């Protein structure tokens, strides 16, 4: 019974893959801290987000098995990202257009 179940269920990822993903995540954590101390101007935020997105992607693909999952689950994951893009896209569109040229330029007044 167990044998039947074992070969009929999801793809068994060899632990070696998990070790490689884990090592990559650890190295990238070091990289993201190191990069934060370099002065890259606006690229600091871009680099931090790019590294975080790459880390999240390999967690989703390997730790969460999406690489080995059915198209339905892949589509579900992409749908989630799609809605997130809508959330950010429409909201930032509103904020940036409404405050065109002045967004982020406000003079900050403290109460004391």
């Amino acid at each position: 019974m167990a044998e039947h179940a074992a070969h009929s269920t999801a793809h068994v990822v060899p632990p070696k893959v998990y070790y490689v993903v884990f090592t990559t995540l650890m190295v990238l954590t070091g990289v993201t801290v190191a990069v934060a101390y370099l002065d890259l101007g606006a690229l600091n935020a871009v680099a931090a987000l790019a590294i975080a997105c790459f880390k999240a992607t390999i967690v989703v693909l390997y730790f969460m098995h999406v690489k080995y999952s059915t198209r339905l689950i892949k589509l579900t994951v992409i749908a989630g990202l799609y809605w997130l893009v809508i959330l950010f896209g429409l909201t930032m569109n509103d904020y940036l257009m409404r405050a065109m040229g002045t967004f982020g330029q406000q003079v900050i007044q403290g109460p004391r």
Partner: protein
Amino acid sequence: MAHAAPHSDSPHHPALAHHFDNLAQQQEAASLGMWVFLLTEILFFGGLFLVYTIYRAWYPDAFASASHHLDIPLGTVNTAVLIGSSLTMAMAVHAAQLNSRRGIMLFIVLTMILGGVFLGIKGVEYSHKFHEHLIPGPHFAYAEAEFFRPAQLFFSLYFIMTGLHAIHMIIGIGLMIWMLVWTYKGIIGDGYFSPVEVVGLYWHFVDIVWIFLFPLLYLIGRHATGH
């Protein structure tokens, strides 16, 4: 289909619900259901990340200044601890796929320990913030007076986002206790492991949230001098 002929997938497995053909189909449905839940979680945390984005764009200098009050070594160690717990969680699911009940229990306990270490370090950080009067509210104190109000926005977001993340971890540890009991009782095993897989998905999601929280909260404007 299942009733038409004896199925190779042991349709009488005690964990197999009657409306599924076999355990593989049941597993697929469970993962799909968990992913749909995680989509709501993506948008739940997404809303907070959106608020963060707007206010950081609005008050970039205040956010950089406030970020300097967070402890990078503790944050880095916690990131490593959480990534380690994702590895042990993945290994718990691996053990479950191989029907190793001992392996499931070993790796779930390791994951719980690492999760506990993360929460402990987080508690130490919260305590530091409390003593430094960095909790937004009447006792908030900030050396740079011009950032007094927007720095409170930063710390409000810091406590809400890391606090919700910590609540998710506490729930995750609770789910793992449940998995330990089920594995000990033998409910999980013998080809049935979707609960462990689904708890794993949840735990990895919580890890991903932290992967974004860490650079966005701790590492802003570190290259800038003058603070």
